[in-house]
């Protein structure tokens, strides 16, 4: 027959373990949610780029292109916030394509995201002016030095 204090201690420990496990499970869920969220942001970017490219190539619907460019700049402001530790391709194999290199070289990674933001802003400016030639150049710059640069160093498509 255990002493009351021991019983209490055991119960408290059991509750702590359950809360701990729950917390870990919640954390894992949270991290998985972040992975999904940023993949959604990536998809949104490619949808936006499609509309912008249509305007650059065909000249139709400048308003839609501007709207999408604003969406891109908003996303680029959010991007630096969606890379918590524990969401790499090693942590979520088959789900996350984020190379562990991101966290090994966070400075370089954040710098690449800053490049994306700057390129998005330049693209928006050209689109607002209706300058399709400048927008085309900005689009190419975004692709090469923004999206491409980040993917080149930090993304491994294992899925």
């Amino acid at each position, binding site marked *: 027959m255990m002493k009351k204090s021991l019983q209490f201690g055991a119960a408290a420990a059991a509750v702590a373990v359950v809360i701990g496990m729950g917390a870990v499970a919640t954390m894992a869920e949270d991290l998985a949610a972040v992975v999904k969220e940023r993949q959604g942001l*990536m998809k949104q*970017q*490619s*949808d936006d*780029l*499609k509309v912008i*490219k249509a305007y650059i190539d065909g000249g139709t619907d400048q308003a839609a292109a501007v709207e999408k460019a604003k969406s891109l700049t908003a996303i680029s402001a959010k991007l630096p916030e969606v890379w918590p530790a524990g969401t790499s391709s090693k942590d979520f194999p088959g789900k996350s*394509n984020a*190379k562990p290199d991101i966290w090994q070289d966070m400075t370089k990674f954040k710098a690449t995201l800053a490049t994306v933001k700057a390129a998005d802003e330049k693209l928006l400016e050209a689109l607002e002016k209706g300058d399709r030639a400048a927008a085309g150049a900005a689009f*190419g710059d975004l*692709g*090469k030095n923004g*999206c*491409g*640069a980040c*993917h*080149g*160093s*930090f*993304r*491994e*498509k*294992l899925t």
Partner: protein
Amino acid sequence: MKRGAYLFAAADCASCHTDVKNNGKPLAGGRALATPFGTFYGPNISPDPKTGIGDWTEAQFHRALREGINEHGRYMYPVFPFTSFTGMSDADISDLWAFLRAQAPVEQRNKRHEVSFPFNFRFGLVFWRTLFFREGPLAPDPAHDAEWNRGRYLADAVAHCGECHTPRNFLGAMKTSEAYAGNPAGPDGQKAPNITPDPAKGIGKWSLDDIETVLKTGQLPDFDFVGSGMAEVVKGTSELTDADRHAIAVYLKSLKPIPGS
């Protein structure tokens, strides 16, 4: 020299021979390439006489690309894709040699490859070569026009696309009957996709323009951008002429569609 620089970009020598990830000096080697047979380190191909290829003759350089034999007369591991470079013409190999000779020499000792047992015994390459190596150069196919042949030359020999995109057998040789059908166990564990014109598993639904866009900017038809190994390749293919990228696209679209892995 300009022709040599162009070939250097097309063949993307820098990807394997410059350790970009660790801010290595150009052509000094050191880049690790993980394969199912071990990890290989790209050697120093700067014209340094002690640690690079500065003391090589042009004939030795030709031998390396055409026959896969190094300056000591030993067989090289086909991680160096001499199996593709063998298709290059003598003139192009000479141009590439001239370009490399003009680069800055860097003194950096080569790292020893970490080859898995039993592949660490080089003499095994004798058998491998007998089974799988066919020496070039690539002769033009008279059944196709000049543009197609140019595309094939660039893709098969110089840019050696098949070395990543063609599935391999258990001895690490490319399965030529399934050319370009994709390799799930590519270098550094990357999955190289199927780029035959299969409509479901390959690039059958892509236009020529789609292919040229990827090679020029890395942008895919769905506005995704290629990453990792292919991004490195695009650094080189973005420097090709529009006509050359078009030729590669024409060639790829003419391949046998293979549903593949």
